[in-house]
């Protein structure tokens, strides 16, 4: 209807639209730093025109929809990449710890303890009649044993720390799943009314992002607006329902280890990416490899030294057949008690005479014999290439982490490009809306004057 009141209506509606637009702008500006926030923008549209002479007459503006600027595909890519980053971040961190534990190359490490052990037998061969050279052999042997113990126990400690981490991650997953389910509920009820649940979706997407770092997930959105989340192939969240993940145990050579189990079934979940994948792999494959290798080194050392030692004679000229080391692996390697209590029993001599140190020389020569890897490597070769291998694994983890992080960063930038708030842009919009608001107000006041003219100026 083209009456002045109709025009007032246009003005009034415009004022309210621009007030709303300002509201949205204000919301964007306030949330420019909110994690996971997607900027919103009003979609303006014309209201239904009316039939009039000479044609269709417009009736003003409305906000058709408050649109959330978000690219679903980017979300997918970001989550996949986040899972990779999660995995390699853990690998890099733990392998870095392993490198610190071994502390090579340095003077306080297994490589050094080993060579000083061999050399102490040579010093003994130079002076077998003397107690002090024997005490030195005992001391260097103790340092060697302690080094094995320390490495072994610190590596086991990493395994137990990983178990604790896994427990924490499972709790985190369950907590995130609960919150996502709750948001599903809220989003569904709002969207069933035909409105966009923009901020709630933002929150839900943020939680799903956090979930993707922990393990590999996939998301399916249903028509009602709820998100179904699959983790490691099994459904974790379905509408308002969640499946709680639990912990089960199984035993391993290095103690009890935790598995992540699925709900009631107790079935163990296998992860292909994410922090959990990294942690479990480290705990079950990588760290045990080092523990096994150390055990192998220790047990062969014990066996070969004892074998040579028992062929020799102590200082008394008659005691023979004694072991030097006790124990069987890196955890329990130690000195035989008889030797510890009486170093004169250390078998330096091959024939019982006190000036003969040839058995001690033979023991020190074990350093050059091919005793490891099916008789193809010396003790030194074996350990040194183990360290080289550690270096390669750690380097690989670092590089993968850096690369994946870079990729993730770029994807995040793309996401920000779509969803992020640009204050400059909002300021520009704000100026725009303000002018439009002023103009709309001006229309109202002009129409008011026009009405005044008609009502008060026309007629008698």
């Amino acid at each position, binding site marked *: 209807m083209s009456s002045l009141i109709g025009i007032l209506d246009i003005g009034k509606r415009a004022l309210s639209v621009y007030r709303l637009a300002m509201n949205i702008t204000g919301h964007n500006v306030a949330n420019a730093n909110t994690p996971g926030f997607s900027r919103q923008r009003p979609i303006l549209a014309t209201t239904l025109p009316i039939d009039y002479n000479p044609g269709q007459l417009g009736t003003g503006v409305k906000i058709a929809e408050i649109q959330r600027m978000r690219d679903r595909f980017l979300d997918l890519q970001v989550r996949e990449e986040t899972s990779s980053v999660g995995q390699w971040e853990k690998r890099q961190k733990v392998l870095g710890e392993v490198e610190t534990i071994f502390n090579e*190359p340095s003077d306080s490490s297994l490589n050094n303890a*080993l060579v000083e052990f061999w050399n102490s037998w*040579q010093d003994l061969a130079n002076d077998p*009649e003397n107690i002090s050279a024997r005490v030195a052999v005992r001391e260097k042997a103790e340092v060697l044993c302690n080094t094995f113990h320390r490495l072994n126990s610190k590596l086991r400690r990493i395994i137990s720390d990983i178990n604790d981490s896994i427990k924490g991650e499972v709790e985190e997953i369950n907590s995130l799943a609960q919150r996502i389910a709750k948001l599903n509920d809220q989003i569904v009820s709002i969207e069933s009314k035909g409105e966009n649940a923009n901020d709630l979706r933002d929150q839900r997407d943020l939680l799903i992002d956090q979930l993707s770092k922990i393990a590999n997930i996939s998301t399916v959105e249903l028509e009602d607006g709820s998100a179904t989340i699959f983790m490691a192939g099994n459904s974790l969240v379905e509408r308002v329902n969640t499946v709680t993940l639990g912990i089960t145990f199984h035993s391993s050579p290095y103690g009890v280890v935790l598995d992540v189990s699925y709900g009631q079934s107790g079935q163990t979940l296998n992860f292909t990416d994410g922090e959990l994948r990294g942690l479990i792999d480290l705990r079950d494959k990588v760290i045990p490899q080092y523990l096994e290798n150390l055990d192998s080194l220790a047990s062969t050392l014990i066996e070969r030294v004892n074998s040579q030692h028992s062929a020799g004679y102590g200082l008394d000229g008659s005691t023979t057949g004694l072991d030097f080391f006790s124990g069987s692996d890196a955890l329990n390697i130690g000195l035989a008690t008889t030797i510890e209590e009486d170093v004169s029993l250390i078998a330096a001599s091959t024939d019982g*005479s006190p000036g003969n140190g040839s058995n001690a020389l033979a023991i020190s020569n074990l350093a050059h014999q091919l005793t490891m890897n099916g008789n193809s490597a010396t003790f030194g070769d074996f350990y040194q290439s183990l360290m080289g291998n550690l270096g390669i694994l750690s380097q690989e983890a670092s590089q993968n982490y850096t690369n994946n992080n870079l990729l993730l960063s770029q994807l995040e930038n793309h996401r920000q490009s779509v969803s992020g708030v640009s204050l400059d842009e909002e300021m520009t919009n704000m100026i725009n809306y303000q002018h439009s608001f002023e103009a709309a107000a001006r229309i109202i006041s002009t129409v008011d004057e026009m009405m005044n003219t008609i009502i008060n100026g026309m007629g008698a």
Partner: protein
Amino acid sequence: MRVSNDMISRIFLLNLENSVTRILRIQERISTGRRINRPSDDPIGTTKALNLRMLEKLNEQYQKNIEDASSWLNFNDSVLDDLQTALNRAKGIAIQGSDSTLNTEDRIALANETNQLLEHIFSIANSKFRGKYLFSGTQTTTPPYTATRDGTTGEITAVASNPAGLDGEIQREIGQGVRLSINVSGNDVFTKDVDIFQTLMDLRDALKADDPGQVGDVLDDLDTASHQLITAQSRIGAKENRVEGALSWLQDENLNIVKLLSETEDADFIKEIADLEQQEVIYQSTLALGKRIILPSLIDFIK
């Protein structure tokens, strides 16, 4: 591309972090002086460095063994020199004593001197080096020779060697798989071709018996004894040479090992400092640029 504020600060921070990380790594290398501070810095280099470190220590040990061997050999050498001097004096006494113009008192005096020489030679035979008997083979805690003495005069009447034997070899490792025996058996020095103790006792007794003919007979034995001693001495001389040669080789080896180790492990200071300066410039530029991008916004210009 549409740029959001968050993007600007995040990209800036990322670049800054990268720059700082690079600087920190360079600083680590400079402060430790090493380019390999953990295996992942250079896996293959680590394997090499660990091996070289081991070789260096083994090399030092061989040198130590050689020092020990050298000391023993040197001492042994000077002891045998001492013995040679004594034998020469014995020869002089024998020549004097075989002169028929000498009177009995003089021969008695010579006999006493001979007895002193015998005691001296006996104590040489039981020489100790750092508490170990020199001529006892590997029975280093047992004296190689024991003397039977006359009840009244206290003079040595017989010398017996350790029944357990004097021939054991005292070995030192002077290189990987290379062993050298550093001792000389008492047998080779004192009793091989001729029994030196017996010869001296014969000389003393002949002089006491005032028999110049008998004294003259001892001269041949004394000559043989001298040759016996010279043979033993030259064996020691040969070992000393061997050990000196080995030491010189080991010292060269050591230089090589140390050089290789340094090339593998050590940081190149000049390069690191140049890199550091470059990175610092990058860091400062990043900061300055950041200030230009992060701070201003449209708000400053809308009034």
